[in-house]
């Protein structure tokens, strides 16, 4: 089964708007993480939400987790052109250390 599927695959918005990306997964998790990747670069950890948490904030980021629906969302408020990147969710299993990444959402913020 595929774990960590994001939608939309691509999102284009204007600077100042909010961007929402969704992630669904299929198996039990210990935590879910969101990462950002600029084109051709490494992955940058943004935020982690544990399976017993429902919502978490960090600056302009807001993450929600619904374990009953096996889904998460990442909201970026007041987007900036510099937020243009690919965003990936990744799930960590209840035991073990392997992260399973989704396909990613390509976010474009137009100035």
């Amino acid at each position, binding site marked *: 089964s595929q774990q960590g599927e994001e939608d939309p695959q691509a999102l284009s918005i204007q600077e100042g708007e909010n961007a929402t990306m969704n992630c669904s997964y299929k198996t039990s998790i210990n*935590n879910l993480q969101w990462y950002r990747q600029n084109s051709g670069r*490494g992955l*940058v950890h943004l935020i982690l939400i544990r399976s017993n948490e429902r919502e978490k904030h960090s600056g302009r980021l807001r993450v929600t987790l619904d374990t009953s629906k096996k889904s998460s969302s990442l909201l970026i408020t007041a987007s900036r052109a510099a937020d243009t990147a690919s965003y990936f969710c990744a799930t960590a299993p209840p035991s073990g250390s392997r992260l399973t990444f989704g396909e990613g959402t390509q976010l474009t913020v137009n100035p």
Partner: protein
Amino acid sequence: EPEVTQTPSHQVTQMGQEVILRCVPISNHLYFYWYRQILGQKVEFLVSFYNNEISEKSEIFDDQFSVERPDGSNFTLKIRSTKLEDSAMYFCASSEQGEGENGYTFGSGTRLTVV
């Protein structure tokens, strides 16, 4: 802010050749990982390493792959006999705890091209 450093940033090699990708994890991290990303595809887990041994590996990590921590700072991925399909971006990562409770820190990657 502490970083995970990977070298080289780009490597071109001929099919059948051995390559070694190098990583310097964050100094107080105990868990180390390799992931890869074939162009346009998902990031895939290869292997995790703790206490000088492999703790978990994926189906991709076959006998052609090996990892080593030769000294107190470096963490290497060796591909013994490269194939065309090994062409990918290889990312090293490290974490303080095994289940990534505080997230993982990734390096900038090594782009491996097998010709």
